[in-house]
């Protein structure tokens, strides 16, 4: 490891309702791969966004190559040599590889774009990375893994000195991950400083030199990877936060009726022949890696996306669900992983969002009975402990956890008995998370049935009565909570399907 090239000191950042970064320290040296770890919402991405100037920090300092700096956007950071390779790739599908790499700074010959020179330069970059990609290939024809390598090539072409990988392996296959690691090692040899953000413990042990752990917006500590165990890191990540008691056995009565049965559901590549049962009062965990097809399964059941085949039974009766309207009619509610896009109407008030699914019951004559609407909304604000100045408050002004509660209120207001929670605590801080857990347990105890999709293993183990595991669009396992462990779930989630 070489000298420190980048140092962030005492970085502080507050969003309305969330202390996102609480005096965080982080440094990275030349020629090292430095892991940045933490649970969802720990502040990793926020820290990187502060670094590249997408967010402005409230206080603290950033020292880069010995100088105090402040970038005002990804472009400025890029020009200085600090580049992020994002989880979601930012590529223009119908352009060629070389055109993508040099987008915004094309080589010119007179007024014409010099494609030949760009192809040559791209080839040089790929040679440097020891990868074999045709610069003239169309980007959308490449696999996700190859596209990511183009993204890396693009990063290097900016004379990068610090490269930040934001969960690079999430969408890659095993062999692509191997290739990625090879490239990262090469870059390390070339004395580049690499920040590696990931959830995957195994990768951290394989590829990184040091690990910095964050938790709830705070800096927890930095370890040398070779000198620590997985458990050390996990302990630092989880800390001593007392969650709702983890489940050691199913809370569902053995004779509880099946409320939802899905048989041989098919919907595109991401949902292939999925079958399962959900029982009254049960929390059924859906585990798997990103892109395993869990959200797609939920959306197909809910009628949000079309399905090709498969039968759905609600309370033993076969039902036809072709649209969310049908699903809601049969008492199914869906809480999306992306609340802002799919859950709430931000320009509407808490009360208006609460009755969104059940508005026909709040009509008197032709008018909306706003008095009744506000009363009911207030009832849910009280019972869910939603923190809002009032039911007339616009939802946009609420924190993530409280927005989630408004979405829950929407479905409770509609009196849905089957609730699909898709990543219910994503982007929610720890206190609110615990409240959501409590609430889900309470709902289950009251006889609601819950499907909980979660990418957080701890959440799956803590909340589920039973766990369904998916991989690449197929159900690869089902396991009672009594027998579920991180290891056997992970095994099923990565199972190769022959």
């Amino acid at each position, binding site marked *: 490891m070489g000298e420190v090239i980048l140092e962030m000191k005492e970085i502080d950042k507050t969003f309305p309702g969330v202390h996102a970064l609480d005096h965080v320290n982080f440094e990275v040296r030349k020629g090292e791969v430095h892991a940045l770890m933490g649970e969802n919402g720990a502040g990793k991405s926020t820290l990187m966004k502060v670094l590249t100037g997408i967010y402005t920090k409230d206080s603290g300092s950033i020292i880069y190559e010995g100088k105090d700096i402040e970038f005002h956007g990804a472009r400025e950071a890029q020009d200085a040599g600090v580049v992020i390779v994002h989880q979601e790739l930012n590529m223009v599908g119908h352009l060629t590889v070389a055109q993508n790499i040099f987008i915004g700074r094309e080589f010119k010959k007179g007024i014409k774009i010099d494609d030949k020179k760009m192809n040559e330069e791209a080839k040089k970059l790929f040679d440097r990375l020891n990868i074999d990609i045709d610069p003239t290939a169309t980007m959308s024809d490449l696999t996700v893994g190859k596209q990511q390598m183009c993204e890396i090539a693009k990063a290097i072409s900016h004379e990068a000195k610090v490269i930040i990988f934001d969960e690079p392996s999430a969408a890659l296959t095993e062999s692509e991950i191997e290739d990625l690691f090879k490239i990262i090692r090469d870059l390390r040899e070339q004395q580049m400083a690499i920040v590696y953000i990931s959830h995957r413990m195994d990768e951290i042990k394989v590829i990184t030199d040091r690990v910095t752990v964050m938790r709830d917006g705070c800096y927890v500590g930095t370890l040398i990877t070779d000198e620590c165990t997985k458990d050390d890191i996990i302990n630092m990540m989880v800390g001593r936060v007392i969650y709702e008691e983890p489940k050691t056995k199913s809370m569902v009565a053995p004779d509880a009726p099946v409320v939802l049965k899905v048989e041989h559901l098919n919907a595109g590549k991401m949902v292939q022949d999925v079958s399962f049962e959900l029982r009254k009062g049960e929390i059924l965990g859906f585990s798997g890696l990103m892109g395993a097809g869990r959200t797609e399964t939920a959306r197909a059941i809910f009628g949000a996306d079309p399905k090709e085949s498969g039968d759905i039974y609600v309370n033993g009766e076969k039902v036809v669900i072709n649209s969310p309207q049908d699903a809601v009619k049969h008492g199914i509610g869906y809480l999306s992983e992306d609340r802002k896009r799919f859950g709430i*109407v931000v*320009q509407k008030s808490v009360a208006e969002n609460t009755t969104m699914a059940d508005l026909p019951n709040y009509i008197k004559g032709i008018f909306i009975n706003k008095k009744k609407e506000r009363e009911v909304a207030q009832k849910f604000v009280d019972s869910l402990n939603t923190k809002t100045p009032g039911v007339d408050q616009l939802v946009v002004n609420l924190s993530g956890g409280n927005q989630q509660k408004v979405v829950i209120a929407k479905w409770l207001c509609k009196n849905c008995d089957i609730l699909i929670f898709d990543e219910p605590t994503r982007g929610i801080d720890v206190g609110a998370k615990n409240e959501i857990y409590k609430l889900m347990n309470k709902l289950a105890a009251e006889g609601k049935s819950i499907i909980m999709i979660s990418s957080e293993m701890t959440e799956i183990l803590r909340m589920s009565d039973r766990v369904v595991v998916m991989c690449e669009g197929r159900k690869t396992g089902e396991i009672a909570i009594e027998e579920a462990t991180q290891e056997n779930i992970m095994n099923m989630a990565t199972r190769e399907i022959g």
Partner: protein
Amino acid sequence: MKKIKENPIVKKLGFNRIVLTGVLILMYVLLSLMVNNFAGLPRIMSALNYAYFLGFLSLGVTFVIATGGIDFSIGPVMFCCALVAGYSLTSKGIPMLPSLLISIVVGLIFGTWNGYLVAYWKVPPFIVSMASMNMAKGIASVFTKTQSVSWPQAAQGGWFRNLVKVGKFPVGLVVFLCVAVICSIILNHTKAGRYMLSLGSNREAVRLSGVDIKKWEMLAYILCGILVGIAAIYYVGAYTTVQPGYGDQYNNEAIAGCVMGGTSMAGGLASIGGTVIGVFIIALLQEGILALGFTKDYQLIITGLIVIVAVYADVMARRRKN
């Protein structure tokens, strides 16, 4: 400044609308000072004539914009309504009342057509309304054999002119304000209005709440069509003669009135009260421009600029909020 905005009375009336009313009054005072004989009833009546038909157009397009859509066909469709209904009246011998209904029905048909294509076929509203605009012109020309149509004067059985004014009493103003109140109630106090605004703000979230968004989106265009049909009646009530192939400029003016009044082009936010004041400003502006001795062309330029400034202000306001 913040204190003023927090004042409960100001909040109730809307800061934006108070400012707009101020602008309207200021414009009137300035014009009265600059132009001889501007103050007084004749100018006001003339401006009102313009405000009626433009107002109905603007109310209609407010619903469409609330859903996040746009309608560039309202002006030519209004002319199509007036031409088809007028031709039926003058050349086909259809009595007055059914002819007026024909005007509204033609508007309704166009609204339904636009709405159906936008909501069910998911054709972008911009394209749909551009196509409808030309279709409206074409249909009107075919129907009237490219002749202009003159509606009868009051003395020749044109009793519909009483809808505009009786003697010096502005009946049109009363009707317009009543319709505006109804529109405001629909938008703010009924299921239809709630869903239109909500889907304009976040379509997917509303769909995933189990709401039939297609139905409500289409309804916005249908309401718009009906109001365009009414606008046609007030246009001929004031100006008698319509010619096929025109009407485009009123799109811009109606949208300007609507956006100036605080309706967001991005959808989800709409104010009927704002639209009403916005329409009066545009009407007074057009009267003022003529009175100042400029041609109608200047009015086109100024309304164009108003649309851009109003939309830009809306964009900036939303950016600040984020």
